[in-house]
């Protein structure tokens, strides 16, 4: 099995998280697309007491062939002070369906990675296809508590776990007067 990492490369359909350090809406993706998480330096964040959500388009797959086993969305997020409730939901949008994971309680450690794996595409409950990946949007929903604590996200990316075409499939051995050939199905 192999993995391909895809990062935000454009605004998605939603840019609702109210605050940022770095690029403003609709370009919040620029604050979470770095290969190495930069913590407090560029981020999106919320002090609002209700969830707001950003979605980001991701780069097209450079693989595009083989069987997709699952996708995992990774998020580096944190709070500025001890929270009294969960305040992060990982989200994806596939076709026109937005799916949010369960709520997570963040800590003040700025390097903690949160993740959610989807084995099938929640939009149709079918196995992931490469066209789904190329159209996928990933994102987050955050909230805080006005004047008390805030939730921050500095990095978002998705890993596609796949079995390359040559890795799977049956093998056939063909014997001929010229030798033995191994043929992959």
């Amino acid at each position, binding site marked *: 099995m192999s993995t391909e990492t895809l990062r935000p*490369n454009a605004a998605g359909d939603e840019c609702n998280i109210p605050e940022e350090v770095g690029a403003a809406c609709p370009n919040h993706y620029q604050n979470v697309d770095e*290969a190495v998480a*930069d*913590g407090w*330096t*560029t981020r999106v964040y919320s002090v609002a007491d209700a969830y707001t959500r950003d979605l980001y388009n991701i*780069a097209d797959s450079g693989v595009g062939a083989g069987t997709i086993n699952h996708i995992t969305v990774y998020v580096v997020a944190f709070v500025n002070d001890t929270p009294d409730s969960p305040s992060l939901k990982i989200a994806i949008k596939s076709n026109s369906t937005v799916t949010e994971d369960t709520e997570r309680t963040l800590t003040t450690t700025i390097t903690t990675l949160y993740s959610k794996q989807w084995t099938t595409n929640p939009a149709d409950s079918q196995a992931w296809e490469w066209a789904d990946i190329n159209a996928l949007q990933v994102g987050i929903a955050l909230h805080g508590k006005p004047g008390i604590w805030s939730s921050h996200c500095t990095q978002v990316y998705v890993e596609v776990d796949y079995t390359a075409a040559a890795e799977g499939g049956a093998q056939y051995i063909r014997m001929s007067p010229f030798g033995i050939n191994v043929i992959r199905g």
Partner: protein
Amino acid sequence: MPLIEPVEQNKILAGRKAVDDYRASHSMLYIGGYYKGVSEDHTPLLNVMLEEFKKQGFNSIQEFFDASELLNIQGIGFTSKEDFGAKATLADRGTLYGMWQ
């Protein structure tokens, strides 16, 4: 918690300049729009900032920002983050929110 000495304050101010420089360089990456490899191009810029942190005695982003926040908190009359948490009014929190971060 003792108040941050002037020499330590200067280290924090130097760290803040490194962060501001990183943020400015970060914005410049996107001047021509997104391009393949931009995510990786953040890394050398980040390394410059981390190098400056190290020169100032901070071993991580977290360590620097913790010190920077404490300087802000002490700047508005509290001794520590715990002191702020226990006694700060909404107005104090608003003041802190508007400070360098």
